[in-house]
């Protein structure tokens, strides 16, 4: 009997016991009508060839293991960044269950959002009644300070008009007339979650700014963008900006709501940009986006309102942080304090100490377009070589920008850029043009299994490792975190490769 009360075996070891192995073997042979093992081996080997790669890249319609999700996810993430805001997604309810699960699996935190629960009759008659009842119920039960409305693809396909619906609901008394209900249409069949973020943010700012007169001041707005590391990163941003004594507003700040303490209270809302600050943000001198591809429309709107605008691409490492600080300095006239210069020196020091470790190592990087840009840039700073840069939601203009970045360094010369490709494409790439390591989300674990390429988890979503998002990846401090994660993986690998006693352990060095 494999199981016992003394040493309880769960799925990890139970099914490796002989009784189970034998049972599963018999099941396969007798009941599954499997393909012959020989055939499976043959096909498996074929999927690693150039021929398969060519076929794989010839597909026009089929998408396999994409590294992107749909717009409303970004809208719900964006809503979480505002004080007391409840996300209300108009359309089918299943989608909302999915966004909540998805974000909770990454952050290991509650994710609150409601749905207007449209069903078949709403598909025929439209979802107006769902909006009217839904706003009333959400307002009464969850006492939000505002409700941020977005849409699932069902509401988009049938063409529900949010503007008119919300006005109608207000007329019916669902929520008070003056209650803030910003909205955004977020069709899942356009773009990805980063566009949903952009659209929702635009909806929120439009709602607050549209009837206001701008009264320019000296403060700046910083938009972090969709970021799985928002908790660590936004806190780091604030620390750095405080050190610079800059007057700023983080526009969309979910760093507290995705990191609430365990002390006996469930906080459905916590922190976030206040309504007051969101309104006042119109008066900012400038708006700076940390992720250009998450904020295209929002930045254009800020510009329309006569603000200066600037954007970065997920700044990781020395150069990117320099650029961030210099941009802030330029926009605000504040100088960069010594304390930050010393932090910079420490990151440079760390890079110098460890220069031999990552040097010449080759990488595949996948994730959102800004992340891939920022990550490749830092890799090249370490003397490492990105070889594949892939963003399923990357566009041709993104690819062009990536190429310019890669061409700027001798370490980027051999890198190819893959906009619009998915992780099954990447599987072929890793099989036919292998690299030493991959950097991306938890989805990369299947590539690690299939191609043996070790994965460093630095992009959303991270489901199978805990708490990384609580640490920053931005700023000089964040750069250190990222550096250590990469070095650890390389050195763990090196130890694994050299630890066989009497065979490979000549290089099993105590000091590296």
């Amino acid at each position: 009997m494999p199981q016992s009360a003394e040493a309880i075996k769960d799925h990890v070891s139970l099914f490796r016991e002989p009784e189970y192995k034998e049972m599963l073997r018999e099941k396969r042979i007798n009941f599954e009508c499997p393909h012959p093992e020989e055939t499976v081996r043959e096909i498996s080997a074929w999927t690693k060839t150039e021929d398969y790669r060519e076929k794989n890249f010839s597909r026009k319609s089929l998408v396999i293991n994409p590294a992107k999700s749909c717009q409303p996810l970004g809208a719900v993430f964006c809503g979480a960044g505002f004080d007391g805001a409840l996300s209300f997604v108009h359309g089918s309810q299943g989608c909302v269950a999915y966004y909540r699960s998805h974000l909770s699996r990454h952050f290991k935190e509650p994710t609150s959002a409601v749905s207007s629960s449209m069903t078949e009759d709403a598909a025929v008659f439209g979802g107006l009644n769902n909006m009217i009842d839904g706003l009333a119920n959400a307002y009464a039960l969850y006492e939000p300070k505002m409700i941020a409305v977005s849409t699932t693809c069902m509401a988009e396909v049938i063409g529900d008009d949010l503007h008119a619906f919300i006005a109608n609901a207000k007329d019916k008394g669902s929520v008070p007339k003056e209650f803030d209900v910003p909205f955004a249409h977020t069709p899942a069949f356009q773009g990805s979650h980063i566009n949903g973020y952009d659209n929702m943010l635009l909806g929120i700012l439009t709602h607050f700014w549209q009837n206001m007169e701008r009264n320019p001041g000296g403060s700046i707005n910083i938009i972090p963008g969709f970021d799985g590391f928002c908790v660590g990163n936004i806190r780091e941003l604030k620390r750095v900006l405080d050190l610079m004594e800059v007057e700023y507003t983080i526009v969309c700040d979910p760093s507290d709501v995705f990191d609430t303490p365990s002390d006996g209270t469930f906080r459905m809302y916590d922190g976030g940009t206040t309504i007051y600050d969101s309104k006042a943000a119109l008066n900012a001198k400038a708006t700076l986006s940390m992720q250009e591809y998450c904020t295209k429309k929002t930045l254009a709107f800020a510009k329309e309102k006569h603000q200066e605008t600037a954007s970065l691409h997920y700044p990781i490492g020395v150069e990117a942080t320099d650029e961030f600080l210099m941009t802030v300095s330029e926009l605000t006239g504040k100088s960069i304090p010594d304390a930050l210069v010393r932090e910079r020196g420490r990151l440079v020091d760390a890079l110098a100490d460890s220069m031999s470790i990552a040097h010449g190592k080759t990488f595949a990087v996948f994730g959102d377009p800004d992340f891939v840009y920022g990550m490749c840039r830092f890799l090249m700073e370490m003397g490492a070589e990105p070889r594949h840069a892939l963003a399923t939601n990357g566009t041709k203009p993104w690819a062009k920008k990536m190429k310019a970045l890669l061409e700027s360094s001798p370490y980027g010369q051999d890198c190819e850029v893959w906009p619009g490709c998915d992780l099954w494409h990447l599987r072929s790439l890793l099989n036919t043009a292998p690299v030493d390591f991959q950097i991306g989300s938890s989805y990369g674990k299947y590539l690690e299994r299939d191609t043996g390429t070790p994965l460093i988890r630095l992009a959303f979503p991270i489901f199978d490792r805990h708490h990384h998002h609580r640490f920053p990846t931005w700023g000089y401090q964040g750069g250190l975190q990222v550096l250590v994660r990469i070095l650890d993986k390389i050195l763990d690998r090196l130890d694994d490769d050299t630890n066989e006693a009497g065979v490979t352990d000549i290089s099993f060095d105590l000091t590296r």
Partner: protein
Amino acid sequence: MSLEYTNDRSFHEQIIEEVLAAYPEKARKRRSKHLNVVSEGDSDCGVKSNIKSMPGVMTVRGCAYAGSKGVVWGPVKDVVHISHGPVGCGQYSWAQRRNYYVGETGIDTFGTMQVTSDFQERDIVFGGDKKLRQLIDEIEMLFPLAKGISVQSECPVGLIGDDIEAVAKEKAKDLGKPVIPVRCEGFRGVSQSLGHHIANDTIRDWVFGREKPSDLEDPTAGFEPSPYDVVVVGDYNIGGDCWASRKLLEEIGLRVIAQWTGDTSLAELERAPKAKLNLIHCYRSMNYISRHMEEKYGTPWFEFNFFGPSRIEKSLRAIAEYFDDTIKENVEKVIAKYRPMADAVIDKYRPRLEGKKVMLYVGGLRPRHMVNAYEDLGMEIVGAGYEFAHKDDYQRTTSYVKDGTLIFDDITGYEMEKFIERIRPDLVGSGIKEKYPIQKMGVPFRQVHSWDYSGPYHAYDGFAVFARDMDMAINNPVWGKFKAPWAEA
């Protein structure tokens, strides 16, 4: 082992009144029909079920797509399942259910892959059928060992008037493989439940009812039936559940010719009608096809329960009644073999769990099916509710729960928080969305959809893991750390 206790009826009635007070009037009326306190001897839990969730209340429910792709079809491992529509649904459900299987993923099995048509604006405007045809060809090109293809419809498909059935028929002929169109758009029905039903119907119509192209052999040919052939229906092999159950059934001398659906091959779907008995675990999600097999092939079905030793023993003996003395004798031998292990598990954990109060809110089966497993460990059920149960589930529930148990159908986030705040149970079992809010309140929690990344929990081998996990959650040192020592008590 049966545990004697009752729950506090008047307190539960009072907290129902309290939560209802928060709703606007129209909503209060509707919600009041979904909350109740059950009385011993009732034939039903006295709640309305399987009706629309109210907008804006934060229902836990999912959609028909989740019920079909996520639950019924997803675990059919040698078939490629297309999430047909925009990218989202497939992305969020990708590899999240832990229905384990054996096979080389991407070669002869496809369970933990996200295959989607990633609809773009033009597909909405011009329709997705052309794309579907093309991508089925592309699947055939890249995954030649796939035994079939299923098309899991997402919301837009049914709204733009696509004819996926026509495409499926045409491509099935072309490829000589089953192509199964499933109309499980998320707006159909009121929860996952209709998705289960639709998926069951597609097995009936498109697997059992498949016209076999002449060049294809009969998939059931060469199959030698035996008098002990059974199918396990409605066990999704979460964390390997069905394997633990299978082992036990084999030990009593039965031959499990198919698992539905967890680690399932297409052949197991096709051959199921040859069984002598269908053993059904999740009644809610698979009663439809079991009834069909009874009508069409005369196969009887029996609802069994492999959670916890007292139910396992009961179920094994009841199953044996369908067979001859050999099986009956085997059952007694097997019970005798496992009882010492089960007792040792109980001896180890019961003293640590005795009298602990549990609230369960899950899909359509577990809030009743797991009751005795908790009771075997000395734990008591104070509240139970379902996301998507129907009337017949609530009828079945009364024989499991005690007088005064709080019942909640399609609970809202608000109600759940308030109930837990007032009852302060020692353990809550529910899903990922509920886990973190409840833990923040200082209440131990286990996910009971995914087994919180553990399992198996079925059969004797699983019961040991279950007991270990409940103890780990309830008696964890972390719960004593919530208040700083200098804070006032």
